[in-house]
């Protein structure tokens, strides 16, 4: 096989105002013709900078300071701009993560897809447009010809990503660099895009550099995997090898800290302690040593270089030899001595009864005529019991976050009730409502946005107490020190500002703040989706630990079924404002009833090449319909493989499929229980 792209000892630095980030150091990799190379690592490990170095598109201050990048033998480092322009988009193309910001909002997609042809092939405008239609067809944009005149904002996220891919493909590149191509997308769309990339690779025989943080994404489609950590390549080998016979402890730990669907959720999740090193001042010796379970004195002294044969190299003095951590080898302490809540003996803490929330769609600047409604939540009923963790999953736009915001009182429902300990919280107003709210707290997704950047951590943690008018300032201080200890942060960090913390630490502070008032229920909206894998498991463990020690209930909202499965006792699946299935976590995974639930489970990329390769490439087709005019009858029918006429006419009601298993489907995958076939409703849920 010929090596299309070869990188040798690449070092890239980024100059900041006062320091230099050594983003990439001595990284070597190669891609052979027609293969997919997965480049895996956490954020800040240098994988994206490696990709940008190849394209010579480094951010301001970024510079390749050493090494070479060769495309079919041609040196790209220090190539003149004019020469480089001929290569970019022509020989090497790139797909970026965020298709909403990488497409030009003021140009039609037709123009944008035609642009590379005009630039590199020099054909006429007409030929370029023909080519644009051809590639748009190729990437599965329906009715491509009619779409040419559309602007990016008129397309959905999935379609925009397809357009991005089309632009990249226009000139038949030899190498395609895909930088987190599916991270911003829903799982169902992610599966479609990944499948598309696979198909395209097979048809055109191009090489793909797949940069991702998601081990599941590389498992199914990469031929080889390179793992990066803190600017260094730590391991490189075939995909199968990396999952079954990895040598670097980091690879092993990274894999072990991903929550699996079949994880025992009464035990702690494996996690890598600490945070990655600061690359402006990297430690001497092995960069993973401070977080490594197998570290020895010599790891701190000198830095290991990549060693091994052609097929497998790893940079470690003490490589692991026995493959992935076996479940029983991971620390499996239980979270504490609490009885499992089976949801029967406990009184209901929170009842959501037939909740409806719509948002008006207005037009006109002054009169704001109502022209429609976004049906965010359409009649959802559920019950959360004391000390229970309830998980809510669904694609973005399914109304799960709105439901969470209504529960904590950030939005008022159009109709329906929310009962906390039997009391309707929306019967209160003003200060009484504010007082009632202390039992319902929230944890937010974005660790950067959820803490006031102008407040010190001490003030952030005291604020809930001041608002609720409890405790003297001395007691408040004691309480905040205690909270910091509980979430595993040093108490001297109280004097710091939020921007001085890493994402995981900020999420801990957010959790501490939610805990301050000793709430009975915390609504956690995507609590870990902004975090890296190794940090994610730390926060998940922390959440679970605190839930046990504080005997709270959680409502965990996430698009990630594995995360919800690990945390939650019971899981509700939402689709377009409706609850379609509700069951205990194990059951939803082993015996899904609703086709949508099964589709979700199937589309999650698992970090296991065996399963991923064998997986039937059956993905949920299409995209989420508009919540402004949801489909009649069963809302999932437009994407459902089992849909029949009745699905469009009659809305399915929740039916019982087990002791506490409900689903709303006319053609369920499992036969319902005879006794409860009606929608006798929420009282049983």
């Amino acid at each position, binding site marked *: 096989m010929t090596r299309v792209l070869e990188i040798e000892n690449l070092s890239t630095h980024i100059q900041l105002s006062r320091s230099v980030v050594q983003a990439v150091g001595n990284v070597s990799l190669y891609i052979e013709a027609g293969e997919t190379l997965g480049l895996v690592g956490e954020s800040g490990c240098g994988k994206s900078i490696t990709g940008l170095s190849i394209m010579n598109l480094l951010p301001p201050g970024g510079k390749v300071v050493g090494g070479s990048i060769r495309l079919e033998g041609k040196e790209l480092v220090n190539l003149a701009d004019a020469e480089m322009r001929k290569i970019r988009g022509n020989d090497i193309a790139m797909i970026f993560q965020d298709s909403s910001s990488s497409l030009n909002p003021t140009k039609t997609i037709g123009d944008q897809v035609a642009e590379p042809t005009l630039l590199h092939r020099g054909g006429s405008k007409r030929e370029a447009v023909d080519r644009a239609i051809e590639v748009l067809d190729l990437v599965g944009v329906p009715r491509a010809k009619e779409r040419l005149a559309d602007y990016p904002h008129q397309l959905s996220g999935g379609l925009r990503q397809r357009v991005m891919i089309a632009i990249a493909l226009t000139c038949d590149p030899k190498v395609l660099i895909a930088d987190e191509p599916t991270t911003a997308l829903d799982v169902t769309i992610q599966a479609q895009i990944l499948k598309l990339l696979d198909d395209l690779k097979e048809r055109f025989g191009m090489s793909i550099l797949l940069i991702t943080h998601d081990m599941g994404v590389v498992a199914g489609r990469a031929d080889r995997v390179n793992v990066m950590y803190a600017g260094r390549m730590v391991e490189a080998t075939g995909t199968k090898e990396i999952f079954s016979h990895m040598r670097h402890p980091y690879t092993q730990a990274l894999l072990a800290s991903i929550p699996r669907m079949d994880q025992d959720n009464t035990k702690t999740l494996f*996690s890598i302690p600490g945070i990655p090193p600061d690359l402006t001042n990297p430690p001497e010796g092995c960069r993973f040593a401070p977080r490594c379970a197998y570290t020895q004195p010599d790891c701190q002294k000198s830095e290991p270089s990549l060693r091994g044969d052609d097929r497998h190299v790893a940079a470690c003095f003490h490589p692991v030899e026995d493959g992935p951590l076996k479940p029983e080898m991971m*620390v499996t302490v239980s979270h504490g001595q609490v009885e499992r809540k089976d949801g029967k003996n406990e009184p209901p803490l929170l009842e959501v009864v037939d909740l409806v929330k719509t948002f008006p769609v207005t037009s006109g600047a002054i009169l704001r005529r109502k022209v429609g409604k976004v049906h965010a939540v359409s009649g959802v009923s559920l019950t959360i019991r004391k000390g229970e963790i309830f998980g809510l999953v669904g694609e973005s736009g399914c109304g799960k976050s709105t439901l969470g915001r209504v529960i904590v009182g950030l939005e008022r429902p159009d109709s329906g009730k929310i009962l906390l300990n039997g009391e309707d919280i929306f019967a209160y107003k003003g200060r009484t409502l504010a007082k009632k709210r202390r039992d319902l707290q929230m944890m937010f997704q974005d660790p950067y946005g959820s803490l006031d950047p102008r407040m010190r951590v001490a003030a952030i943690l005291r604020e809930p107490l001041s*608002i609720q008018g409890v405790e003297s300032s001395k007691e408040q201080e004691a309480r905040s020190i205690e909270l910091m200890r509980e979430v595993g*942060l040093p108490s001297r960090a109280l004097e710091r500002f939020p921007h001085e913390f890493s994402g995981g630490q900020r999420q801990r502070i957010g959790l501490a703040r939610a805990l301050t008032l000793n709430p009975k229920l915390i609504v956690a909206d995507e609590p870990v989706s902004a975090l890296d894998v190794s940090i994610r498991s730390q926060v998940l463990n922390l959440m679970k630990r605190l839930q*046990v020690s504080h005997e709270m209930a959680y409502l965990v909202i996430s698009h990630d079924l594995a995360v919800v499965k690990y945390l939650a006792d019971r899981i509700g699946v939402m689709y377009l404002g409706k609850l379609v299935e509700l069951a205990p976590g194990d059951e939803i995974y082993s015996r899904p009833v609703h086709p949508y639930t099964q589709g979700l489970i199937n589309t999650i990329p698992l970090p296991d090449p065996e399963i991923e390769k064998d997986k039937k490439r059956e993905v949920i087709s299409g995209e989420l319909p508009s919540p402004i005019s949801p489909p009649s009858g069963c809302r999932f029918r437009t994407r459902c493989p089992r849909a029949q006429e009745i699905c469009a006419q009659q809305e399915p009601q929740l039916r019982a499929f087990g002791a506490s298993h409900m689903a709303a489907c006319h053609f369920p995958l499992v036969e319902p229980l005879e006794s409860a076939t009606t929608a006798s409703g929420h009282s049983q849920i």
Partner: protein
Amino acid sequence: MMDERNTEGVEEAPLNLGGALGAFEPGAPLIDGGDVDLAVTSGWRLAIRSFAENKLALVGLGILVFFILFCYVGPHVYYSNQLSGNVLNSDLPPGPGHPLGTDNNGYDELGRLMVGGQAALEIGFFAALIATVIGSLYGAISGLVGGILDGVMMRVVDVILSIPYLLIVLIVATRYSGTVLSLSLILGLFAWLVPARLIRGEVLSLRVRDFVSAAKVMGSGRSRLIFRHLLPNALSVVIVNITFQVADAIIAIALLGFLGFGLQYPHVDWGDMLSTANTALGNGYWWLVYPVGISLILVVMACNFIGNALRDSVDVRLRRR
């Protein structure tokens, strides 16, 4: 070590994870969140650092400090009679005793520059302060409450903005003018519209941020939201705006003075001093025009330099560590 791991039981000898995990006893949580940087760098400190790196800003700051000293300390060092003129000494060119000459009433021009500068700076700062305080509160309330109130409040702003501002100021100034305070009030009461719009825009983007939602979930009331969360975060915009407001007010008062609607005689501001510029230049009395004109330009320019640098430094605050 490898062998040990294979043979030993799980519960007795869990893998060493650097103290990250262990039995979770509520009483003894672990500090496993990683360390934090020791050096405290508040957002403000970073902003000051970046401000100090801007050469123009330092030049602007220098000019402003110089003029403040010149106007307030100057009269104590350089004594001149500014209470009664001496017509016999009128229109003297620069020379001994009068480094910058005298004006048509026989006042010493250098001393007059200092006193006039006091008025210009005071009116500039007061007017900017009044405009910013009113504008910030108005904008914050409008942005936070939203809905119909926001619509009404902003339409009010639109209406006032569409009135020829100088015309009204002139009319009001003829009736109530004369003192530094009244002129500051008049200018300030007409200048709050722009900051109100700015702050409203900022609040609109801030109020959907998660930390505001978080405060609401805690049960925070509106006044707390405004004073503890929204205004402090919009403060950077406010401060930048103040510097531009100062510059605008100084120009406005110069204009009023030039047109003869400024301070009442014998009080003086730079605008008054320029009111004779036309005839003075015709007569070749350059010392009555250039010093005061250049001072005015320098002070306004300095404010703009500072404002620009502040805007840059508060912008990068969140981008850089």
